């Protein structure tokens, strides 16, 4: 039995996990909150990244979009972490020992990095991504990568239910 196996077995036997396992409506309710937060994040991210793909069209619109929708990408994240943690405690092995869950977490780290890389330069220079042909190309590539990562995260989230824990 690996250390992770042992941890999952221990966690599943704790009082909070037992309670979550025995109250039927908790898991779907927490999943509902989780999906609603994902909805806020991906719709907002789409607005920002579509503007990254259209960079060079008009004015400093990426910066305007990032100001407008950035908060809806960032502040659901703590709620997602909290609701995700509850789901892990409720069914430790289903997630922690599942390769798709690990993939989802890896994609999440990457998408945070990619989003920060896209938004951060705008703080000091709202027209940063418009300044040269090279930067415009960079914005389009970064926007496409970020969108692909979000799609991967949503798909991985659903596939956790279908891939058996390792």
């Amino acid at each position: 039995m690996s250390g992770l196996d042992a941890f999952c077995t221990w966690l599943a036997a704790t009082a909070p996990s037992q309670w979550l396992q025995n109250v039927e409506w908790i898991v779907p309710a927490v999943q509902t909150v989780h999906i609603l937060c994902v909805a806020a994040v991906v719709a907002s991210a789409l607005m920002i990244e579509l503007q990254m793909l259209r960079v060079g069209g008009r004015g400093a619109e990426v910066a305007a979009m990032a100001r407008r929708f950035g908060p809806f990408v960032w502040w659901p994240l703590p709620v997602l972490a909290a609701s995700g943690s509850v789901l892990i405690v409720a069914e430790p092995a289903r997630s922690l020992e599942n390769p798709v869950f690990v993939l989802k977490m890896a994609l999440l780290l990457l998408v945070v990095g990619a989003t920060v890389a896209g938004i951060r330069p705008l703080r000091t220079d709202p027209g940063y991504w418009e300044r040269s042909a090279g930067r415009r190309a960079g914005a389009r590539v970064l926007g496409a990568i970020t969108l692909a990562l979000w799609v991967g995260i949503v798909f991985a989230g659903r596939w956790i239910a279908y891939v058996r824990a390792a």
Partner: protein
Amino acid sequence: MLDELCQRLEATAVATAIREGSAWFPWIESVHVLALTLVVGSIAHVDLRLIGFVGRGRSVADTTAAMLPITWSAFVVAATSGALLFASNATAYAHNDFFRAKIALIALAGVNMLAFHGLVGRDAAGWRDAASTPRRARVAGALSLLLWIGVVACGRWIGFTLSAPT
């Protein structure tokens, strides 16, 4: 009559392939989840603007124009993927209370939207701040938000009450 229709639907080649292939269902379901997060996330932005919670410096018409293309394209994808998932197991879905509630809530959200556009939405370009957002507009926004939260919750509960993976 309904059951007969469902059985016919289940017997189609597409429905049989989705039901019997091991990967079709989760892939289509992943597309469904991605599309519905975009539908709900984009509508939530409009609703929160109507309520006056966000984007007060921008007219409702502005916000609606920015979000609705995403809402409608995502809705077409969500409805199509949802129809395919339904077809694969039509009788069971048709008899599932949460599925029925979900369809009813989507219909109500549609009626709410039509009523809003007909009754209070026409002069939406004029509302520059929350103070001048008519009460009816705020009620329509809050109602829409609640209905869509209900849609997501029912969708999640279908997974726990039908004998498919959760």
